[in-house]
């Protein structure tokens, strides 16, 4: 005589059953393919600790001036690429969104292009660009801009698509042309969402510019990569701490800005 009140509806329950069954299948196949055994790693844990405590710690700092300029390069890369992508992404989104576009067909092509760019990881783009244009911060800037441009265009299109019909319809009825619609309907209604995504992209790009730096973009990522490749682990540990502080600091700053700009406004 046990009565149970189901917490999850029947339809959802079936979905979860299928989901976990598929997951289990993938898990089994992947384990077979890679022969990965996490418990075997536990027995190697000693070696890991030894590496961590003897080779890695304590972190040291060498050449603080060089590191500072490397940090500045990384930050400058992130800021300039994000801002450039913001402007390009806004223009592209206005033309690509079916709600506002004056060239619907071109908009479709643009959306397909953005999907293509977005689904290929940014480091692969960086690699293609480095092989064609040579290494350097300029190319890293282009690579970062391309991937955040794709990201922002996609999110901006979604924001514009969710824009309530009323304001665009009212402007169309009053005979507003394309730039008027953009300035008086899209901008005031979507500005806060655009800022929100801009700040989020900034957080992402601080991380990305570190990674793109590793494969040839310069900045703090390259410094870290050189230290690791030359087995200078204590110095690498110092750089890792600096990267962590940088990323956390930027996250905090963005959270503060978000609160200031989006709440007060």
């Amino acid at each position, binding site marked *: 005589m046990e009565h149970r009140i189901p*917490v999850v509806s029947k339809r959802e329950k079936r979905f979860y059953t299928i989901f976990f069954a598929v*997951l289990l299948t993938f898990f089994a196949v992947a384990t077979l393919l*890679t022969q990965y055994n996490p418990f075997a*790693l536990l027995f190697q844990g000693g070696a890991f600790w030894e590496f961590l405590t003897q080779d890695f710690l304590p972190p040291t700092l060498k050449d603080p001036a060089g590191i500072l300029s490397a940090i500045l390069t990384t930050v400058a*890369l992130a800021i300039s690429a994000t801002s450039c992508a913001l402007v390009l992404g806004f223009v592209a989104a206005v033309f690509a969104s079916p709600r506002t576009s004056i060239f619907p067909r071109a908009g479709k092509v643009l959306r397909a292009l953005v999907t293509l760019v977005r689904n290929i990881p940014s480091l692969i783009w960086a*690699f293609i660009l480095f092989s*064609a244009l040579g290494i350097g911060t300029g190319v890293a800037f282009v690579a970062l801009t391309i991937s955040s441009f794709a990201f922002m265009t996609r999110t901006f299109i979604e924001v514009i698509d969710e824009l309530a019909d009323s304001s665009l319809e009212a402007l169309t009825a009053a005979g507003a042309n394309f730039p008027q619609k953009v300035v008086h309907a899209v901008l005031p209604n979507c500005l806060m969402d655009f800022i929100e995504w801009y700040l989020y992209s900034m957080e992402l790009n601080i991380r990305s510019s570190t990674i793109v730096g590793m494969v040839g973009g310069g900045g703090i990522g390259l410094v870290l990569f050189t230290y690791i490749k030359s087995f200078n682990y204590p110095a690498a540990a110092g750089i890792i701490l600096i990267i962590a502080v940088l990323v956390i600091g930027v996250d905090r700053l963005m959270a503060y800005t978000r609160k200031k700009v989006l709440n007060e406004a």
Partner: protein
Amino acid sequence: MNQSSQQLAVQPSRWGFPQARERSGGKIPVKAPGQDRVLKIFFGTCAVLSVASFLFLEVDWLKLLSRVPNMGESFVKLFTFDFTGFSSTLSAFGESVSMTVLATIYSAVLGILFGAFMSRNLVKNRLAVGALSAAFTFVRAVPSVVWVLLVLVCLGFGPATGIVGLSVHSIAFFAKAYAQSFDDVGGDVVEALTVVGANRLQIFFRGILPAALSSIVAWFSLRVETNFSESTVLGMVGAGGIGFVISSNIQNYRYGRAGVAIVMVFLFAYLVETGFSKMKRAYLMDH
């Protein structure tokens, strides 16, 4: 002229509109000065910082532009597919997908565990929660490629390196996301179960976990996408998988082969993304 403008200004008041609205040439004020000031400061700062950092980079744009034709050439070469050595590309692709799946599953399980220890609904000791979440904040702040590089030093070349390296960052991500999901379940569920005498384990498994299941699946699917893109990147810093195929082929000027691998990455990422978004819309959005 003067008279006519006066007439115009008077007209709206016939329908009882307040006269004050008419002041600035018939415009209805839609702006709040306080908001405008904050936005002006924000955009001003952003513009100054952007221009300053752009100049700081000191990029030789002429040289860069002169190489743009190479770019087109590279793309043509990438898209003239070369299917020789396709079986090794396929097995590397399988390795990347396997690394993604295993890393995400193992870290989701551990993430649920740590998330439970970080949830305010379950653990009352603020100090322990704070210490745990600070540690995970640090782990998340370091890009996962860096973790992979460090694991590479310890474990050497192989799929285990990729899985462990991806897991480090993913566990920290899941711990935070799931702790948040468990907190979002709300006090009423916990209270109801506490009242009937459930212990903490029962509260977690009977109350919180079922209620948070949809967000667990949502975060999981998001992380599968991220981990796949990370796993393709691993090869470029020296771990295995499809990334190694891409980078080594590009370095050896076998663009056709790299092109095939890149298209595979794109197709898989695209399928996963559309699949998950369809799944979410069909099953998870309706509550």
